């Protein structure tokens, strides 16, 4: 391992050649997609008040109505009043709001976070500790982020722009939801949980990143498009009317209201589509170019047809898929709404069109590229702490490829090859791609996947199909899941293993079993817990030494043995899980009562069949709540350092370690230097006093080197964590499970954490993922890293996450591809759940950090998602640069 202090890059293997190596050449998008992407690059994240205005206006008129009907009427009003906007060249129409990157606040969920800083409500929220994570989050300064107010545009959360004309109504509408939003109602009742002040202290210390129960009440799940594809909107309405008649007046009357609500909501979506058809005709009426005029008219016919009837071809089916995807996004603040196995869902339509000769591969690629642009345009409106600190501005629409069919054969198909091809030619962050790797997948398909990963898109990620199925059967068998059904799974969000079901799509008298999601959000639970911060608080007997606030009661242990330390950590971790599970359940209960899901409920089996929405356990599978962790490698490395240096070899006392941590090992903090990776830090004058203990902390065994000393600690942690999560019950009275992804939380959570015993310095970003090594500490090559990462059984957890950075020259050419595939296989065959790659020269990232304007289209992989470099905050940029770059495999 060589660490180039001058350029601050960690290398494994030989030094790279001088000069920045480009990524392997990639193909260009079709002219249509290229034009759309160029427009996207110019567009800024923009807020519109139309939807929330009409939603609120209708809501207010229905005081006393059955809550789910009131919700449906409000959604209907929002959809049918959206101003239709169609952009020239589009083959797929419609979006969240009348801007290219449009989004809007949802004050019925939470009204406080977008209020102006001087607003009293905002101050109250700050005082209650709810916005603490915002304070330590940095948004990306470039790309489509509106980072500061300019002229008649006001910046919100460092990302969204709102016109000054709409700001007053934004605040007025927000005020109407004060004490009535899910946030406020949930907050009122969560305070009844015994020990509630401890929860507030936990949030203020950023031991926990955010309240998931209402902030992102849906998402990190897989869509199911079967019903609109099979029956069309009119067909679903007709089915609901029949079901409504069957249940009216009988016990379990909630079914009546649910069916009625779905009908009302669908009427709104129908109008929304028809309004766009009308706008397409208007655009045609003012268009002079014949081809564009014809395309507008074709679009109008297409939208008019699918506003009621099921799609007739692949293009219409893709448009239906997109419309319902957006419709779900418009009913809640959602991140990680994954389209799932799109290539398998749409394959019957595409195959039929190919046989008829109404589509060819070139047109398919063009459509798929347009789909990529539309998904990339999605924005999620939330606070900076959530949008920046958790999501890095990403929306995690994960499209999965491969896996197995219902009867256990390879599910990869020709359309999926074209999806990969479109991912290569039109590289955009959304939808990100994941290959559900199974030994049965054909070599040609896997090589196409490798070809895509190699060009530096960061996708597809590689996920272990068999490990995921084992996890699902372990956690969903009690709800009726069998092996066949387990094969229908897909990734929800960046990396959440999510249950699916096989749906019988009938086309021309033939049944095609298509996979789709059949469970609610996995975005809800205890999200995220900072493992290094909890260890820090344990070392200081329950105190957060950054703020001087007591977080937990004294543990009363002198920590004279390693077992004492491990016990203190587990006790505090368990206390946090306990109180946060209860408060989260109350928040989500408020959500399901005030703001129940209708669009997503209508789509998910078996809600329509049993007449219950998602919040009433209408889905086939409901055990989706989880406990998420962050900073695993830093926790494990810290425990290893203390075990060796304090307890086994007695080189230092615990008191000496505490002093060194408080002194930040004699360095300036990351906040002082403005740099968030370990190798860029600046020593203070008294550095020499702490030099030895810091050196020995850094020299202690580090995870990622196939070292049994530290890997045993990792195994002990994982087995305990995965088991203890089952002790907590979700709102739906199901046991919870472990989820181990960092997303972007390792940035802001690292920012509030003092130096850690592994030698990491105060304020620097944690290690990413959950089985990634801390940057620069994996010294023995990829296979040693794989051995460490798989020292525990990954099927015990909803996921594990491994990120690697490889220099482009290492995987160059056909031979490089073959070598790369073997590397991926080696990890997955060891039982690894997931691995993803940045194929990039780190020097390019350094240059892009210095000159962002020259790198607008540069993509990098963070932790489960691909994002434009310029839209990442510095905390994450520094961490990605610092990751070990492999110069040889």
């Amino acid at each position, binding site marked *: 391992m060589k660490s180039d202090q001058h350029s601050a890059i960690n290398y494994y293997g030989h030094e790279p050649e001088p000069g920045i190596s480009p990524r392997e050449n990639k193909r260009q998008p079709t002219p249509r997609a290229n034009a759309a992407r160029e*427009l996207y690059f*110019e*567009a*800024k*994240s*923009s*807020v519109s*008040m*139309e939807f929330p*205005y009409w939603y609120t*206006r209708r809501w*207010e008129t229905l005081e006393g109505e059955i809550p789910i009907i009131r919700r449906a009427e409000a959604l209907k009003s929002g959809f*049918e*009043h*959206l*101003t*239709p*906007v169609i*952009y*020239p060249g589009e083959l797929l129409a419609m979006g969240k709001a*009348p*801007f*290219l*990157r449009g989004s809007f606040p949802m004050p019925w969920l939470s009204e406080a976070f977008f209020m102006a800083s001087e607003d009293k409500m905002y101050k109250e929220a700050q005082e209650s500790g709810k916005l603490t994570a915002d304070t330590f989050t940095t948004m990306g300064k470039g790309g489509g982020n*509106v980072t500061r107010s*300019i002229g*008649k*545009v006001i910046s919100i959360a460092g990302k969204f*722009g*709102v*016109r*000054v*004309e*709409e*700001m*007053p*109504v934004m605040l*007025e*509408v927000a005020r*109407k939801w004060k004490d009535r939003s899910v946030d406020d109602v949930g907050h009122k009742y969560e305070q009844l949980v015994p020990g509630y002040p401890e929860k507030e202290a936990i949030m203020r210390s950023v031991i926990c990143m955010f309240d998931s129960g209402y902030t992102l009440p849906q998402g990190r799940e897989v869509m199911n498009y079967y019903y609109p594809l099979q029956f069309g909107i009119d067909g679903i309405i007709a089915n609901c009317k029949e079901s409504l008649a069957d249940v009216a007046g009988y016990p379990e009357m909630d079914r009546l209201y649910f069916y009625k609500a779905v009908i009302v909501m669908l009427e709104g979506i129908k*109008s929304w589509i028809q*309004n766009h058809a009308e706008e397409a005709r208007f*655009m045609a009426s*003012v268009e002079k170019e014949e081809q564009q005029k014809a395309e507008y008219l074709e679009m109008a016919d297409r939208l008019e047809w699918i506003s009621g009837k099921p799609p007739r071809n692949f293009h219409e089916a893709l448009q239906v898929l997109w419309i319902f995807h957006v419709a779900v996004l418009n009913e809640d603040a959602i991140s990680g709404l994954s389209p799932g196995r799109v290539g398998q869902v749409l394959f019957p339509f595409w195959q039929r069109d190919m046989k008829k000769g109404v589509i060819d591969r070139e047109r398919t690629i063009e459509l798929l590229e347009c789909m990529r642009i539309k998904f990339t345009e999605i924005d999620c409106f939330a606070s900076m702490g959530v949008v920046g600190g958790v999501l890095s501005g990403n929306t995690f629409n994960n499209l999965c490829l491969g896996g197995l069919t219902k009867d256990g054969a390879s599910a990869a198909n020709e359309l999926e090859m074209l999806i990969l091809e479109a991912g290569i030619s039109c590289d955009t962050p959304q939808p990100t791609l994941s290959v559900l790797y199974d030994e049965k997948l054909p070599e040609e398909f896997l090589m196409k996947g490798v070809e895509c990963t190699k060009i530096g898109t960061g996708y597809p990620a590689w996920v272990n199909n068999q490990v995921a199925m084992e996890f699902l059967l372990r956690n969903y068998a009690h709800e009726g899941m069998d092996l066949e059904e387990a094969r229908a799974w897909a990734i929800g969000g960046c990396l959440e293993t999510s249950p699916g079901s096989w749906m019988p799509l009938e086309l021309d008298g033939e049944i095609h079993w298509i996979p789709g999601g059949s469970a609610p959000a996995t975005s809800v639970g205890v999200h995220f817990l900072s493992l290094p911060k909890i260890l820090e608080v344990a070392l200081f007997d329950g105190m957060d030494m950054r703020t001087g606030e007591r977080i937990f009661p004294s543990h009363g242990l002198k920590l004279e043995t390693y077992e004492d330390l491990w016990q203190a950590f587990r006790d505090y971790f368990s206390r946090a899980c306990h109180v946060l599970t209860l408060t989260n359940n109350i928040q989500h209960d408020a959500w399901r009562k005030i703001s129940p899901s209708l669009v997503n409920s209508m789509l998910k089996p078996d809600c329509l069949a049993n007449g219950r929405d998602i919040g009433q356990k209408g889905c086939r599978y409901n055990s989706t709540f989880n406990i998420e962790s962050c900073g695993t490698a830093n926790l494990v490395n810290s425990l290893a350092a203390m075990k060796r240096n304090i307890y086994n070899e007695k080189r230092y006392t615990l008191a000496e370690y505490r002093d060194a941590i408080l002194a930040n090992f004699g360095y300036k903090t990351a906040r002082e230097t403005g740099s968030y990776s370990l190798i860029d830090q600046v020593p203070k004058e008294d550095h020499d006093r702490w030099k030895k203990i810091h050196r020995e902390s850094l020299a202690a065994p580090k995870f990622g080197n196939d070292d049994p000393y530290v890997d045993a600690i990792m195994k002990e942690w994982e087995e305990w964590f995965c088991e203890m999560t089952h002790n907590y019950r979700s709102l739906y009275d199901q046991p919870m499970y472990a989820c181990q992804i960092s997303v972007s939380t390792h940035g802001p959570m690292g920012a509030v954490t003092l130096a850690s015993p592994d030698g990491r310095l105060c304020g620097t970003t944690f290690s990413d993922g959950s089985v990634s090594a801390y940057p620069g500490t994996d010294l023995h090559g990829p296979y040693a890293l794989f051995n460490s990462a798989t020292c525990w059984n990954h099927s015990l957890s909803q996921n594990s996450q491994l990120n690697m950075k490889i220099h482009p020259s290492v995987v160059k050419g056909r031979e490089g591809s073959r070598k790369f595939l073997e590397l991926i296989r080696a990890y997955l065959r060891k039982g690894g759940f997931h691995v993803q790659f940045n194929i990039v020269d780190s020097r390019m990232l350094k240059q892009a950090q210095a000159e962002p304007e020259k790198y607008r289209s540069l993509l990098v992989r963070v932790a489960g998602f691909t994002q434009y470099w310029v839209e990442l905050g510095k905390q994450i940029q520094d961490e990605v640069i610092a990751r070990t770059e492999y110069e040889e495999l």
Partner: protein
Amino acid sequence: MADFKCSDCRFYLPVDVFSGFCKLSKEKITPDTPFCCKAEKIPKCRFCTNYTAEKEFLGKCMGATLAYPDMIAVKCADFQWYRKN
């Protein structure tokens, strides 16, 4: 017409809060660009007979409901052009 801007026009295609296109000329314009000779007003609350201004950027619809002047009202069933406009 001099008081009107492109974001008041039926032919304005918004891209974001800073800019958009003219549907007729296809030129890139800003929402604050002054009306041209081909411009046509788009239904907005402030062009509606039901709208009453109360303070800057805020008003009432039919004297009772919160409204704001720059909201596009192409899909509002109650929109009626205010004759003086």
